[in-house]
């Protein structure tokens, strides 16, 4: 597709969780690339490692029990896995990469008015550069606050939050789910980031509001040229929103393609079954793939899908298939190709 270098490149990311029941091999060599200005959908059933991937990129995997055992996360020429926590917090998280979380009520601190949380995000990650300790002190001053509030209000208007001035003094529980989602989008865009990670942001909303918010998100990020890694289990959302899609299954990515190509020419058996499980276009939830998702404590070797795959061959249980290029921008990891 584009020849520009990717904004974010995840290579062979491996992540384990040590639990009482055993070691969960949550991510087993995940690869994905987000190109400048694009919206990449990351699709898969729940528990397949989408959210774990997002947390690994942000460097907020709880450790213990989590442990990143291999791979690289390249962002702006740096490997985020090698950056110290301080640097991550100062330059990357909430500044170059921001998050739109899934649970809108749970993610907002319940005991502070909105203003506090928005101001703190901007205060610690001003788009103009932080200016050291002196800069921070200045940002506790009244003048900075006035400017910052103006900036915040402008953004709240852009996300079409009703009564933005009044909203600043309200607490999270006083908004509707859709309003909170708009707020969280505004919060994610506030530091003017390079990449936004959206973790199933519209799952809890009803369909009409979901469509409005997705349209709004797409317009805002396209205007700014911000890249988005959009995590979802909902293929309908993918079709409407994303430029490209990466499909994940049980901690591995199986196929990456431009959205249109994925829907018209799905290559991996898992992708095919995913699409086949959508009987008509009104029904958008994933369901009806035979078999069960394997336990990740003792995962199948080779291609993890082989236990449920009708076309599995002997080698599928032995080695993980390499990446094959089917068409420009369309790659698949399957021994059939």
């Amino acid at each position, binding site marked *: 597709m584009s020849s520009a270098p990717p904004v974010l490149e995840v290579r062979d990311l491996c992540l384990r969780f040590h639990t009482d029941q055993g070691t969960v091999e949550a991510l087993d060599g995940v690869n994905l690339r987000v190109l400048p200005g694009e919206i990449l959908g990351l699709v898969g059933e729940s528990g397949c490692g989408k959210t774990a991937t997002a*947390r690994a990129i*942000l460097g*907020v995997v*709880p450790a213990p029990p989590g442990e990143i055992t291999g791979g690289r996360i390249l962002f702006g020429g740096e490997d985020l896995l090698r950056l110290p926590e301080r640097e*991550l*917090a*100062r330059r*990357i*998280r*909430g*500044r170059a990469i*921001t*998050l739109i*979380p899934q*649970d809108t009520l*749970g*993610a*907002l*601190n*319940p*005991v*502070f008015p909105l203003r506090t*949380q928005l101001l*703190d*995000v901007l205060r*610690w*990650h001003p788009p103009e550069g932080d200016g050291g300790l002196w800069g921070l002190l200045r940002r506790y001053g009244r003048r900075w606050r006035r400017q910052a509030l103006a900036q915040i209000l402008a953004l709240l208007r852009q996300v079409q939050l009703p009564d933005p001035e009044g909203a600043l003094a309200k*607490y999270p*529980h006083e908004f509707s789910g859709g309003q909170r989602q708009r707020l969280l989008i505004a*919060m994610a865009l506030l530091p003017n980031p390079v990449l936004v990670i959206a973790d199933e942001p519209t799952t809890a909303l009803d369909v009409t509001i979901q469509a409005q918010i997705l349209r709004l998100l797409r317009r805002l990020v396209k205007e700014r040229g911000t890249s988005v890694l959009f995590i979802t289990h909902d293929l309908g959302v993918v079709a409407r929103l994303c430029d490209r899609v990466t499909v994940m299954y049980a901690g591995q990515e199986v196929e990456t393609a431009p959205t249109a190509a994925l829907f018209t020419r799905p290559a991996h058996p898992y992708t095919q079954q995913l699409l086949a499980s959508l009987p008509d276009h009104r029904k958008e939830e994933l369901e009806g793939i035979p078999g069960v998702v394997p336990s990740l404590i003792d995962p199948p070797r080779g291609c993890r899908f082989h236990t449920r795959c009708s076309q599995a061959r002997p080698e599928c249980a032995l080695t993980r298939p390499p990446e094959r290029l089917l068409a420009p921008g369309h790659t698949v990891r399957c021994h059939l190709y």
Partner: protein
Amino acid sequence: MRRLLYTAKRLALMVPTLFGLVVLVFVISRVIPADPVALLAGERATPQQIEALRHRYGLDRPLPVQLLAYLRQLARGDLGTSLYSGRPITTDLFGRFPATLELTLAAMAITVLLGVPLGVLAALYRNSWFDHLLRAVTVSGLAIASFWLAIMLQLLFSMELRLLPLGGRIGVPPPRALTGLFVLDALLTGNGAALRSALQHLCLPAFTLAFPALATVVRFTRAGVLDVLHSDFILYERAMGLPRPLIVGKYLLRNAMAATLTQIGLLFGVLLAGAVVVETVFDWPGIGLYAVNAIVLSDYNAILGFTLWSGFLYVLVNLLTDLGLMLLDPREATR
């Protein structure tokens, strides 16, 4: 507006509780004892004297009438007369209350200023040697009899080491009374000698009183912080790159404090009851010591007055805690 409504609701809920409290004390005083008048009159009273007293206090009338009379008396702010001092009990209690207040506030300050940071640290470094040590201390705090702790502290610090006074409230002429709290009065009047003496006298009783409460606050703060530590919003705040000291000191603490604050309200009752024994051991001239003297002298009205007064304070403090909780956590008001 919503807050105002909530406040009004909580105030209204106080009324039946207080009424129940009065009835309870009434039952304790008039129904439980076989012959309350004999209690009132003392052991050496003649049958004629008892009969006269019975009539004078209206104890020969039916119980509901007595309850009504009692309520009417309380509504006038009259808790009766002390059989020993002969003064109205309200006068006695008010005169001695500042001493108890000073002691309780000092204990509360120790509890909160020490207990909250320790609880936060224990949660942040859970299962470290510090956490285990603190757990041992808190478990002891809840198992120790405060009168015994008081005596042991006296034995060590006052009798053996001679560092701190054995008892009493002050060793020099008290500062000019403004608030009745010696430490505060000494500060306000710039009386250095009184301040020094008052603080020295306050040390051991306040610590004794605070120790069990401290244990509870540490435990609850630790549990509260652990609860919040794994919440989505802390994860989100971290994902948004807010620095850890800010997250812990501002966003996390405010949430964890909600659980602790509820406990602090309940602890006030523990402190109030603890004041009875602590004041006894340290000869602290507050309402607790008053109650114990009343026990010794069988000054029955005074004990009931003290009981009612304690209950009233306790209800009041719990109301204030609820209102504080509402300010801390705006969701409270909608519950």
